[in-house]
């Protein structure tokens, strides 16, 4: 008799619930951009813009990355996630925190920011702790393992600074300057989100494009340059704002971004799967956006940006462009895999099962990509020009693309969010 062996992965509901919440966050962000167009083209220094930014960073991207890491840590690095049960409880803490934190920001309710910010910080620190204590079980020390490890350190630093700023907003202990905020933003964007995305990208590109034989020298060099540049940028923003060191380290970070793009291009050249998939086209836009964000960032720190709307354009290029396209693209791999694993792995070999690509509606995926790419480019141009009508119109296209993506993703991930593996496998086996 065949038995289903115990697996290292937690049940599908653990990554699933984070991924579903990330999807909801993405939808609100996508529709929020055209609705807040007048505020976005004016300045970054607006509570509603702060709220939208935190919604994107926490409610969409971080939630998605937590879900993806819960899924990938066991399968890609061979590690065992410690206490999945705590992870499930932690989800509620984090989801409640973010659900209260973002509206509190939007309405300028400082006590709410402090209270819900504390819950959010608790949830994030718990996740970081959960993954850090799972690290000794890692069996495959792929570069992704080092990138994510560094990202977790930056996550703790980002959250620490953010928490102090949130409390300070309510208690008014000291004056928070623009450069102090910029340090928090850089740690979050380039440190936590950037390093996680880069690490995961190396692993998934190898796996899904069947890329073999790529030297890892540049990958590790990039990890070093990126962290040195980010540490230097953070410290110089905090202690010597406006100095040449800020520009110098920002330049070094831009070079590291270029190194990463070159490295991924070299990795793709070794692929055995020639046909470019919809996921890879998302990757190309994502990497282009990274370079655009790096260029905008350099202009900002060197004082060559014409207005504060360029700060918003920089953030948008990074969040919706670099991270957004990467997340949407990789979802076309991660979500079908998650779905397949828990719906069909129990019967594969005994009866015909679908391929991963057959679980995704490809026509919907390509239509979504077109709308997202055109919408994103339009919003970016509108932000740089300071034109609210362009932002609103292009933002509506982007939102339509996001909706098509959500339709594709929801039917894959919704059934997984609230069911355990045993339930799903037994469902398929009795079907």
């Amino acid at each position, binding site marked *: 008799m*065949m038995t*289903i*062996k115990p*697996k*290292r*992965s937690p049940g599908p509901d653990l990554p699933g619930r984070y991924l579903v919440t990330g999807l909801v966050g993405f939808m609100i962000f996508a529709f929020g951009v055209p609705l807040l167009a007048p505020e976005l083209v004016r300045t970054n220094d607006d509570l509603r813009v702060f709220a939208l930014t935190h919604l994107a960073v926490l409610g969409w991207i971080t939630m998605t990355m937590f879900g993806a890491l819960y899924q*990938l840590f066991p*399968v*890609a*690095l*061979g590690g065992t996630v410690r206490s999945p049960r705590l992870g499930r409880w932690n989800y509620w803490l984090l989801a409640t925190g973010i659900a209260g934190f973002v509206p509190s920001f939007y309405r300028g309710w400082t006590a709410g920011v402090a209270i819900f910010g504390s819950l959010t910080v608790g949830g994030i620190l718990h996740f970081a702790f959960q993954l850090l204590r799972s690290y000794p079980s890692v*069996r*495959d020390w*792929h570069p992704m393992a080092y990138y994510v490890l560094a990202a977790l350190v930056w996550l703790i630093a980002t959250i620490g600074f953010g928490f102090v700023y949130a409390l300070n907003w309510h208690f008014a202990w000291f004056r928070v300057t623009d450069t102090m905020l910029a340090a928090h933003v850089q740690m979050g964007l380039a440190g936590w989100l950037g390093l996680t995305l880069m690490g995961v990208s190396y*692993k998934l590109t*190898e*796996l*899904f494009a*069947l890329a*073999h*034989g790529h030297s890892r020298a540049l990958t590790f060099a990039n990890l070093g340059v990126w962290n040195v540049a980010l540490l230097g940028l953070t410290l110089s923003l905090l202690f010597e704002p406006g100095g040449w060191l800020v520009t110098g380290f920002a330049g070094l970070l831009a070079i590291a971004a270029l190194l990463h793009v070159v490295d991924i291009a070299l990795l793709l050249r070794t692929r*055995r*799967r*020639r*046909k470019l998939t919809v996921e890879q086209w998302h990757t190309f836009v994502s990497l282009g956006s990274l370079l655009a964000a790096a260029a905008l960032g350099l202009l900002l720190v060197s004082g060559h940006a014409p207005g504060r709307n360029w700060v918003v354009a920089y953030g948008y290029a990074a969040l919706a462009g670099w991270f957004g396209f990467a997340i949407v693209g990789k979802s076309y*791999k991660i979500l079908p*895999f998650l779905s*397949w*694993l828990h719906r*069909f*792995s129990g*019967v*594969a*070999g*005994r009866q015909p*099962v*679908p*391929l*991963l*690509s057959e679980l995704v509606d490809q026509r919907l995926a390509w239509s979504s990509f077109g709308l997202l790419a055109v919408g994103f480019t339009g919003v970016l141009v509108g932000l740089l020009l300071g034109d609210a009508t362009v932002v609103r119109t292009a933002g509506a296209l982007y939102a339509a693309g996001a909706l098509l993506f959500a339709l594709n993703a929801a039917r894959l991930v919704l059934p997984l969010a609230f069911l355990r593996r045993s339930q799903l496998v037994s469902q398929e086996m009795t079907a």
Partner: protein
Amino acid sequence: MTEPRLQLPDDLLAAEAWQQLECVYDPELGVNLVDLGLIYRLDVKDGKVQVEMTLTTPGCPMSDSMPDAVERALLTIPGVAHASVEVVWEPRWVPEMMSERATRELGWV
């Protein structure tokens, strides 16, 4: 009372087993495991099948489910009483182990 087991010569069972494994596909690549070059060894003795296989990379997301699928596929063959699958990492899989059909399906040639 258990049903009497079908007795087939081991070499016939081995041929059947290879054929059966050609029906097990990598769900991401859409190529069967035999053409991918992932099955390193297949031995049959007294109706018991032993397989040594690998995966395209140690961090393969299918590292749990593919060996299970192979075991399941072998057990569907009449005459196979027992199937065991071992995942090995030596020699490490390289794309050159793929058959010509697999490289063609992946668009490489």
